[in-house]
């Protein structure tokens, strides 16, 4: 008996000790959490103006502010031209109204600390305003006028286009923006309004008429909703808005914009080379669901577990356990009126690119084949449900949701309904949703990184290399096609000019030496530089320039060339080389060109008469090195100007060289003065001190040109 007692005491002791070794409740686990205070959803009053504008009022007298949020149906999916909606959304505000210019609006609003802004999205155009309550009567009428009578001032369109073009030129600089843009193109198709990538030609093609047309078509009372939030009285505000907007009409036929067709998901592995990065950026996914899809609640839970939080599978594997990345995760981002997209991402150092990608792929595969754990599902649900109160924590959130539900035809109770459905999602639901909507064999995979990373991908399948070079802006001018008549006429004029310059000497022309001074006009002042050199026609030159920074040599030898200063030598890139060759060919009043005309090697197309530098001249187009050049011949039958399209710091520009001060040198008439015009401004002026032809070059040609 005693033995048994001792044994049981010992056993008991062991049990006690064992349970002691188990975790005792941790401090936070003993906290009793009282019930949540009730959600006080802000009260919303609804009304409709006599012309159909829908109104929502949310009063809040805490602070003396008033805010307006407006939505009008009409966005990128309604465009006739790519970029039309984007430009519309910007210039709607910056372009001012019928009664107040954009600049005046800016000054007026900013002086009273108020704001009016606008932008256009996929399906709608949004406008909003904020002001101190005391400024209501100044700002509201202006806001109303932006809706009914925006001016779309031409200079503001130009300004916005300039900014858009600058944006295009920069679109590959930051890897985040570049990756997202290219990824969306893969999922929705490159031409989809949802993928919206504008080129310079697109921007150039949009006109003021296009913007006015968009406004006239889509801005109508029956497709406009306005919410007013803040410190005001609803009844008074309603009367006030009726006064401001009640007479607004749009009797044009009601337009409709179709949701564009979206191609189904298709597997692809894509690589973009970007070498100025320390990480590889990886994006993968495919088309997803609409927000009102019956499977959305399950997919929401699925994507939360897979990649939507810091305790999600992708985050845990890629970042926490493997330390491969700072950013890692993903989710299914729904859209109201079209399919959203699954979107998984990470960025990692180049060496671990494949490992990170494969880790994500493995998690996608796993969640399609194995059920998630009860703990994971519960945690994701708790997160959603415990965060639900935040959907009502500001008047703005409530207003925005109301707007969007009404706009997209969703029931007002959608948020509550969704919450109920999420509460009911089961482990089987999640697995079925994964099998039905997430496909590891239909993923668009995008990898952006250093050149050597591409090789890591080859074992995963065939890799498309995406070229992200930005296409240059179009040449805006279209010249008429040459005809035998215009070619004959043009060539005749040039031949006559060649005769005037000195036909015999032209035929024997080989080289020239020159000495002169060039003055360049810059925003920082005029810079004069002495220069001298030799030109060996048609396409070789050696110029030595005395610049403020020292002596600089420029050598062009047909297909090659370089610039040198001191012991530093740099090759001239091809784009500049072309301009340089052509410049030699056209130098000194177009001597090489005229020589070729005499020899029957060059032709000119007569276009017509034009004013150049305040004189009338005949404009003749000659094709040189594949590009058109405009040669102007004055009333005296001599070439007076030559216009070429050059690659400048500001992009391709037409520069006109006007020549004068013709003097006779060894029987050739050559201009000793020239000025280069950039539009109306003089960019550069050159005066020659000495010119000579067919000189005996000191040493042979090659060494004189510094080419050995």
């Amino acid at each position: 008996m005693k033995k048994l007692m001792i044994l049981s005491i010992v056993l008991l002791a062991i049990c006690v000790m064992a349970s002691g070794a188990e975790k005792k409740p941790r401090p936070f686990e003993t906290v009793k959490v009282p019930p949540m205070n009730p959600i006080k959803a802000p009260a919303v009053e609804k009304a409709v103006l006599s012309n159909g504008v829908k109104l929502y009022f949310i009063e809040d007298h805490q602070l003396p502010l008033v805010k307006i949020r407006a939505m009008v149906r009409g966005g990128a999916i309604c465009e006739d031209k790519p970029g039309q909606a984007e430009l519309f959304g910007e210039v709607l505000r910056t372009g001012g109204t019928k009664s107040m210019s954009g600049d005046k609006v800016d000054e007026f609003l900013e002086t009273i600390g108020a704001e009016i802004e606008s932008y256009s999205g996929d399906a709608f155009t949004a406008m909003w305003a904020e002001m101190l309550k005391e400024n209501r009567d100044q700002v509201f009428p202006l806001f109303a006028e932006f809706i009914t009578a925006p001016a779309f001032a031409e200079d503001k369109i130009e300004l916005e286009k300039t900014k858009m073009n600058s944006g295009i030129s920069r679109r590959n600089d930051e890897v985040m923006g570049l990756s997202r843009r290219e990824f969306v193109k893969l999922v929705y198709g490159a031409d989809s309004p949802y993928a919206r990538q504008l080129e310079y030609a697109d921007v150039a093609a949009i006109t003021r008429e296009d913007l006015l047309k968009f406004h006239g078509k889509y801005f109508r009372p029956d497709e406009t909703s306005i919410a007013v939030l803040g410190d005001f009285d609803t009844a008074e505000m309603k009367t006030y808005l009726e006064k401001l907007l009640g007479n607004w009409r749009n009797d044009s036929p009601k337009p409709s914009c179709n949701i564009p067709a979206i191609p189904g998901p298709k597997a692809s592995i894509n690589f973009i080379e970007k070498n100025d990065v320390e990480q590889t950026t990886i994006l993968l996914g495919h088309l997803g669901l609409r927000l009102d899809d019956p499977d959305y609640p399950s997919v929401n839970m699925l994507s939360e577990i897979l990649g939507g939080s810091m305790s999600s599978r992708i985050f845990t594997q890629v970042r926490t356990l493997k330390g491969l990345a700072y950013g890692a995760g993903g989710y299914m981002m729904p859209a109201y009126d079209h399919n959203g997209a699954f979107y998984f991402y990470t960025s990692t150092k180049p060496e671990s690119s494949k490992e990170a990608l494969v880790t994500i792929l493995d998690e996608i595969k796993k969640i399609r084949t194995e059920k998630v754990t009860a703990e994971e599902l519960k945690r994701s649900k708790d997160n959603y449900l415990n965060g639900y109160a935040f959907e009502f924590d500001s008047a703005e959130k409530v207003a925005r949701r109301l707007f969007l539900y009404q706009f997209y035809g969703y029931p007002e109770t959608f948020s509550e309904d969704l919450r109920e459905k999420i509460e009911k999602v089961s482990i089987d639901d999640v697995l079925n949703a994964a099998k039905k909507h997430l496909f590891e064999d239909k993923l668009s995979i995008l990898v952006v990184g250093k050149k050597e990373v591409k090789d890591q991908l080859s074992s995963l399948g065939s890799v498309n290399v995406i070229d992200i070079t930005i296409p240059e802006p179009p040449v805006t001018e279209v010249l008429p096609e040459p005809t035998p008549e215009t070619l004959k006429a043009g060539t005749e004029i040039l031949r006559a000019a060649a005769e005037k310059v000195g036909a015999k000497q032209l035929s024997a022309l080989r080289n020239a030496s020159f000495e002169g001074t060039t003055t360049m006009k810059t925003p920082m002042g005029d810079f004069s530089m002495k220069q001298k050199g030799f030109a060996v026609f048609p396409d070789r030159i050696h110029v030595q320039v005395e610049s403020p920074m020292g002596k600089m040599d420029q050598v062009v030898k047909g297909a090659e060339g370089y610039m040198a200063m001191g012991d530093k030598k740099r090759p001239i890139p091809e784009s500049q080389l072309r301009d340089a060759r052509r410049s030699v060919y056209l130098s000194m009043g177009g001597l090489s060109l005229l020589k070729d005309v005499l020899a029957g090697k060059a032709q000119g197309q007569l276009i017509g008469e034009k004013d150049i530098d305040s004189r009338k001249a005949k404009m003749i187009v000659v094709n040189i090195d594949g590009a058109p050049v405009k040669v102007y011949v004055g009333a005296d039958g001599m070439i007076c100007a030559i216009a070429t399209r050059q690659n400048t710091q500001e992009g391709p520009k037409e520069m006109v060289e006007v020549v004068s001060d013709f003097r006779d040198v060894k029987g050739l008439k050559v201009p000793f003065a020239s000025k280069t015009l950039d539009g109306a401004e003089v960019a550069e002026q050159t005066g020659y001190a000495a010119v000579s032809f067919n000189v005996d070059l000191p040493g042979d040609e090659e060494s004189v040109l510094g080419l050995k």
Partner: protein
Amino acid sequence: MKNKWLAVASVLLILFSLSAVAADDSYKAVEKRVAEKTLSNGLKVIILQRPEAPVASFVIYANVGGVNEQQNGTGLAHIFEHMAFKGTDTIGTKDYAKEKAAMDKEDEAYLALRAERISQNPNPEKLKVLEENFRKAGEEAQKWVETGEYDKILEREGAQQLNAFTAFDQTVYFYSMTSNKLELWAALESDRFINPVLHEFYKEKDVIMEEKRMGDSSPIGRLFDDFFPLAYKAHMYRSYVIGNMEDLRNMTREQAMAWFKKYYCAKNLTAVIVGDVDPQAAFPILEKYLGRIPAGVKPEPPITVDPPQRGEKRMIMEDASQPFITIGFHRPAVTDKDDAVYSAIADILGGGRSSRLYKSLVKEKKLAMEVQAMPTFEGEKYPGIFTVICVPNKGVKNEDCEKAIYDELKKIGAEKVTDDELRGVKARAKTRFLGGIDNNLGLAIQLAFAENVRGSWRELFKSLDKIDAVSQDDIMRVSKEMFVRNNRTVAMIETQGGEE
């Protein structure tokens, strides 16, 4: 309040001013609702009750940041911020006793590896062996880790806006939850700042090094990484908070713990709560949990002062990307009496489409697509940098933008700004401030900043008065003194392949 009559008088004054100019001073009514208390251990708590929605934002502000770091120890403030999410001796571990033993072994293995690596002539064979030892020791330690437990707890409880950031002057931890979870928050927060355990330290360093690579993958990120060391000679504002890659690689768990012990004492922490929380009910709860944090010794502030800049500093970074330029001018800390003037100057120069720089560079001369002016850049508590940044339009050179910017900077120092411009600064400050009050988290962070950077949370509510007091003469005087060439640091991106 010490003087009872003063207290009564000030309440009367507030009531009077409320009734006289109710709408205008509504934010002063907000100020009145702010309650503060210093706990028994010196930890300051600030609570603003906003019962509009049953939620609250919770902020722990540590008065420590990049500015407290030393050369060769950069990145430590941020490293600790990451580690604060790893858990404690009861969160994030399967068995702390076993894990601690394994972590100690892991640290030993790491120190041996590190010693060889940083030695003058590291032996490759030896390194391989030491790396393998370290890796194995890490695997052993990992066995006892309950990965991501802290994150899971917060996710389950519905924490929103969960995040933290490390800056020059502070490290801030925050999230929002339904307000009934006040005590839960206090329990969790106090626990992790009393006995944090730096689980998975070395893996998390890898994560942080990826974070640095992320910043370095951006051309503008790279530029600013060099801009700060250029602008500052000695002061630790010179070191971008993420730290140098080699410092990160070589940081030890012990150094991170030492950092915590020195800087995360109660006297160096502030807790701010904004939302549906009753301060009087909350204070005892906060005393119960946050009051347990060791009082510690308030650490000495950094004493290095940068000498006045002797001449303009310039840096040109050749890059594949498009041009970009940033120009900085030294200015005093935000506690300077002229602080509001610096803010006014920045707003007149770059605050909106009718601002001077925007008008000149974007609208009239079409030199830039974007231009901004900021009264400080990242560091506020010590002498900072007034910064202008400019994104040139396609085909425009940085130097053309630079010249146009200097023209405007010269003008604002030579002629008085207009009445309308001054009026606009004050009006914009007001609407911005009022708009910010409706945001629990933003307001909580601003209160924490004001308390620690400017000396008192009340400074937040004084900011509008200070802006109102700024005169045209002030703006001219301060501009003239600041915008001089010697005081200038310029960093720019030039596209590769252009002229030299």
